[in-house]
């Protein structure tokens, strides 16, 4: 594990959300400095809490809408009302299998200042991860099952 990585054991949905909010503040600080967008790649199995994590981010941004799973529709967007990030895009690549399908979403075109993009199942396209990392500030967050009520969260 490299020196930058942070490791944390979450024992509740609340703690997962708090972890998300700490990460958001940290990412915000970096993005404010050069007016770039932020991208968070969420990795982990079904049921590990990726949507809960995103709900935590949205709460910190003061999003009024309920964050729901983007699995079917592939992309959800929300307006934030506080902090640097004013817009949240929530992607889920779960249903996509081919790089070309992922290209069709044209995620890079959304990278404007004040935009936060969260992408679930980004493991499906390392090319996308590399592409977005060149254009924005990225964090890769790994969530793992430890027990039914515990999750290990690591920022790589």
């Amino acid at each position, binding site marked *: 594990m490299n020196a930058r990585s942070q490791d944390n054991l979450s024992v509740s949905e609340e703690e997962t959300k708090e972890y998300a909010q700490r990460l958001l503040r940290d990412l915000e600080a970096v993005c404010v400095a050069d007016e770039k967008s932020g991208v968070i790649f969420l990795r982990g*199995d*079904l*049921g590990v809490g990726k*949507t*809960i994590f995103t709900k935590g981010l949205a709460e910190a941004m003061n999003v009024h*809408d*309920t964050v*729901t*799973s983007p*699995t*079917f*529709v*592939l*992309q*959800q*967007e*929300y307006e934030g009302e506080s902090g640097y990030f004013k817009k949240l895009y929530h992607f889920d690549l*779960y*249903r996509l*299998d*081919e790089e*070309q*399908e992922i290209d*069709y*979403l*044209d995620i890079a075109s959304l990278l404007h200042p004040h935009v936060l993009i969260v992408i679930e199942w980004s493991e499906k396209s390392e090319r996308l991860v590399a592409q977005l990392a060149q254009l924005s500030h990225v964090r890769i967050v790994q969530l793992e*099952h430890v027990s*039914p009520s515990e999750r290990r969260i690591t920022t790589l």
Partner: protein
Amino acid sequence: MNYPNDLLLAVDTSADDTCAAVVRGRRVLSNVRFSQIALHKGYGGIFPTVAKRAHLERIDGVIARAMRQAGCSFADLTYLAVTYGPGLAPSLIVGVNAIKELSAKYSLPIIPVNHMEGHIFSCFAENRNGLPRREIQFPFLAFLVSGGHTELVRVSDYAAYEILGKTVDDAAGEALDKGARLITGAGYPGGPLIEKLAREGDPNAFSFPIPMTKTGDLQFSYSGLKTALLYIVRSMTDEEREARTNDLAASFQHAIFKSLLWKLDKAIDQTGCKMIAVGGGVSANKLFRKQVRVLARSKGCRVYFPPKRSLEGDNAAMIGIAAAMKVEKRYLLQNSADLEHNSRATLQSLEYSSV
């Protein structure tokens, strides 16, 4: 009933499928859905799979086919209808732009339709001969259950909706899909597979928590149930899991349906509605239909499901029918340039509903 005799072309590109249809009032003259299968059959397999979600490449062909099957030309049309939301923004734009172009070219007014309105009115589709005849009695309850949505809506009139409850995380159909993945490793979509496996299984073999029964509201939640399934599956050896596949599927499906029925029961009591319209892909599930029918009967309610398989999932005929209802009420868009997509459109604050 006197429905307008006007011919209407409708388009829906809100998600995966590229859809176009021609309707006359509630009568469906054509209903074309461009899926992967149609793609290979109709176009000689020349389309690369890269076009899977590229509505742009298919929209003109789908519209042309819908017009041909209905036996009409653009000169015969009176109105155009299109889904403006909710859905995937890049996909919605394709349908909206196609309809705007047609509107300009043939000077036809546009009726913007919310995708969920389409699912509500899919239950009232008729064939060319006007069958089945189903009377719409306001107010009624709409129960929309699919891979992307789980919503209970009180419909008090055309374009007058109140969302009573919806999911706070995963949709019911999505939970079924992901359950199939956890139980069998199957890819998307897995809902029909769960239904098939569940037929041979014991719904009480495993006990799952029935979500949201203590909240006192009409909201839904399925992410916790998904996690509960994950841990049951994880505690099993591969052999055990294979031996209990049917029981797992039956028990998981049972828990989802039980929570859906629990909320429907509450909504009927709360609203006093005597009619229920069920729409969305999960309405295809035979056990779910049966359970809804039993509940409706016990409450003295009439219940309607989409009359045809092709009307259950996403399609454009339902958009045309919802639009035809709006024609009656004169919900028309005067200036087609004003039409914009809205990926997060909701029934609660309906756009384009002023007379």
